[in-house]
């Protein structure tokens, strides 16, 4: 029950998620073409956008929901150490348990956010266009949902982790620089004089893409690409929470 109350507190952000998903799908809504739905849904995972700098506007616009979530929950865990922290943590007997619970809630909230972006948009597309929805569409949507959830959780956790060692604004900026560099490298990869496949192997957004014809090997590797760092970052956060010392008041303002 307590978890439900915590999740409901963020209803505003879920509303933003629903709206941004619908807005991104609006251009396809009235289409009369009998295209498979997953071709439209691909917009969420950046697939089918070309490797060309002219796609930057689409890329950035598709990135907006992911940016919002990183901005909103980026320091959600760390800020517990900023305000009233002495009086909070003098009451918490098991910090590790607290950190694990917070990370679990963060994952849950991220999953709900991504679902709020994809599901209403998917329903709207199905009802308002001639797009064809079949079992492959559902499979595609599920893979995309898993991948976007893991990517978002990884980024949110990374901002929280970096904030323990740097100022929270710097932590957020570093992660956005990583995001922007990844987008830039993806868009410019065909122009770079290095083997394109090697660059894209380690590119965040290339890994995030789930193409309509699912290559199960590629998505499985991508899954590990997001899963393993997420676990490592979570463990490092737990360690940081355990090791944080209240030798002075950590205060960054009313965050």
């Amino acid at each position, binding site marked *: 029950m307590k978890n439900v109350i915590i999740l409901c507190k963020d209803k505003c952000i879920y509303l933003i998620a629903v709206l941004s998903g619908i807005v991104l799908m609006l251009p396809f809504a009235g289409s009369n073409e009998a295209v498979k739905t997953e071709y439209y849904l691909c917009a969420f995972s950046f697939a089918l956008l070309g490797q060309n700098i002219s796609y930057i506007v689409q890329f950035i616009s598709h990135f907006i929901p992911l940016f919002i979530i990183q901005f909103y929950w980026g320091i959600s865990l760390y800020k517990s150490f900023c*305000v*009233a*922290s*002495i*009086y*909070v*943590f*003098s*009451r*918490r*007997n*098991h*910090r590790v348990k607290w950190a694990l619970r917070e990370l679990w809630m963060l994952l849950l909230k991220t999953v709900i956010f991504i679902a709020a972006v994809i599901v209403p948009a998917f329903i709207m597309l199905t009802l308002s266009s001639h797009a064809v929805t079949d079992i492959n569409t559902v499979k595609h949507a599920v893979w995309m949902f898993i991948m976007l959830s893991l990517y978002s959780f990884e980024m949110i956790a990374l901002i929280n982790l970096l904030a323990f060692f740097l100022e929270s604004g710097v932590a957020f900026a570093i992660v956005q620089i990583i995001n922007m560099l990844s987008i830039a490298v993806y868009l410019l990869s065909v122009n770079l004089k290095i083997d394109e496949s090697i660059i894209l192997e380690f590119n965040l957004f290339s890994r995030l893409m789930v193409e309509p014809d699912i290559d199960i090997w590629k998505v499985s590797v991508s899954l590990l690409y997001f899963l393993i760092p997420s676990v490592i970052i979570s463990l490092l956060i737990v360690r940081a929470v*355990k*090791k944080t*010392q*209240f*030798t002075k*008041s950590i*205060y960054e303002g*009313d965050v």
Partner: protein
Amino acid sequence: MELIAECVNKTIDKKIILSNVNLKLCSGKIYGFVGRNGSGKTMLFRALSGLMSIDSGTVTLDGKILHKDFDVLPELGIMIENAGLYPQLSGFDNLKRLSSIRKKADDNIIREYIKTVGLDPDDKKPFRKYSLGMKQRLVFAQAIFEDQKILMLDEPTNAMDDSGVQMVRSILLERKKDSIILIASHNHEDIDMLADEKYRVSNGQFIKEE
């Protein structure tokens, strides 16, 4: 209850904060700590409570070891100078949020304690708009409202008017019989009046005054 610190040492940035501290603190007594700013009084509270790790030595509560059996002392009420509460919340909401951690105090108890420290539980003013004395009263309330049995109070009467000082003194004397109370203060009158045992703190060393 018995809180024991044995050979506790702590150094931060090559500066000795606590040097071979040995203390035996029991329920039913108030312990006063006096010393200059930066002498180590507040750091002792942070170390004994578990909010800060120690380099060597042990802190035990009734035989259970701090940082091994628990992360912070159970039933701890602490008040650290300059450490504020949630700035955007009212007094009542602040205590309500804190009470959600231990779940020991309901709304009625929270209201009662806010009244006890001389504040209005229905006041919607956020903490950041409180005067210094009001802030101090509310922080004192958070240290005692869950019937905590170990109180570590750093300058508890700072910025308080006479009625506030009297309120703090009478509550501490009332609580003394079943609690371990530690007070750090510049105010010699507080220490002389309340403390059963007095320690002078200098460069991280704690010397008992007879």
